[in-house]
């Protein structure tokens, strides 16, 4: 269950982002991730651990939206981009070359955060003008 540790990493990154919003406390609706197929992350396990980890915290009520990114590699024989298949040893179907250049599939990215900021009547200047 290394997704638990990955969730910890994710929460640390989000806390850092939250500090950047001070003195306001953002109310987060959704956290969007991009998770590549060629990583050791199981999106379902990540969703599960995230839901458990944020309970009772400032992120309670937020959802984790995960976009999976397919594995794609570029064949260095003909420059074609192909979908490597484990059953074909990830080799390129065009020139039968090994998987040299990975184009996508290694992503483990926090893409964006949907949130809202409460209006602070005491200090209106603190509300960013977006």
């Amino acid at each position, binding site marked *: 269950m290394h997704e638990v540790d*990955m969730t910890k990493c994710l929460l640390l*990154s989000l806390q850092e982002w939250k500090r950047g919003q001070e003195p306001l406390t953002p109310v987060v609706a959704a956290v969007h991730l991009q998770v590549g197929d060629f990583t050791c992350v199981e999106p379902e396990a990540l969703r599960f651990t995230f839901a458990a980890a944020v309970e009772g915290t400032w992120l309670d009520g937020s959802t984790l939206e995960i976009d999976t990114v397919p594995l794609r590699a570029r064949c260095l024989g003909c420059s074609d981009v192909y979908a490597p298949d484990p059953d074909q*040893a990830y080799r390129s179907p065009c020139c039968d070359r090994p998987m040299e250049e990975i184009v996508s599939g290694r992503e483990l990215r926090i893409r964006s955060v949907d949130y809202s900021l409460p209006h602070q009547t005491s200090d209106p200047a603190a509300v960013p003008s977006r």
Partner: protein
Amino acid sequence: MHMPLSDTLGLNLMAANQHQAEHNREHFEAWNLLCLNVMSSPGAGKTSLLERTITALAPQLEMAVLEGDMTTQLDAQRLEAVGVPVVPITTGRACHLDAAMVSGGLRQLQAQLNPADLDLLWVENVGNLVCPAEFEVGEHLKVALLSVTEGDDKPLKYPVMFREADCVLITKVDLLPYLPVEVERIEAHIRAVNPGAVVFQVSASSGAGLEAWHQWVLTTTRAHTRPSVLAEVG
């Protein structure tokens, strides 16, 4: 009243671990040592290999080991018996080392010795072919082991580990006569997911292939810790 906002972060999910890993690497650079992260499934022969390799290279290199183990200190004791400083890192439930654990190990190491006296720091990771591949600890290079008894399909089943490795050792080749596996197939599958990997076929028990591997470790360490020598030669 709330207004809906969206911030594009584009942050790496593992950013927190990576920051710590970079911090560890800065220490390694300051101490002018090479750090190798050794990974494999449980029982592939990491500790046996390190026993042989450390013994063989001890006359030429100053070495220490950070030994990751989930519950016991058995591996640490085996390596201490070889006569090298070992810091055990018991990970508890975690099935891999992360950069923060290694940072803690480095502090313990500093209590024992001056790391600047070292040429090479081995990190023996927890036996696991999945997670350690995603958790950088600050190493310069990753070394993955695959024993012939695990079967030739493992590089295809656990491709991230073998893709990320800079060097792959096919271990226990002395057992090949007794197994229905072809070592060529294992190596072909490693090269299919990682054409750039340096691959060695070794046996820690018979000693087969160890010389080439030891030479690689020595050359890589020297190239890293004494870049000025290369510059002078050139």
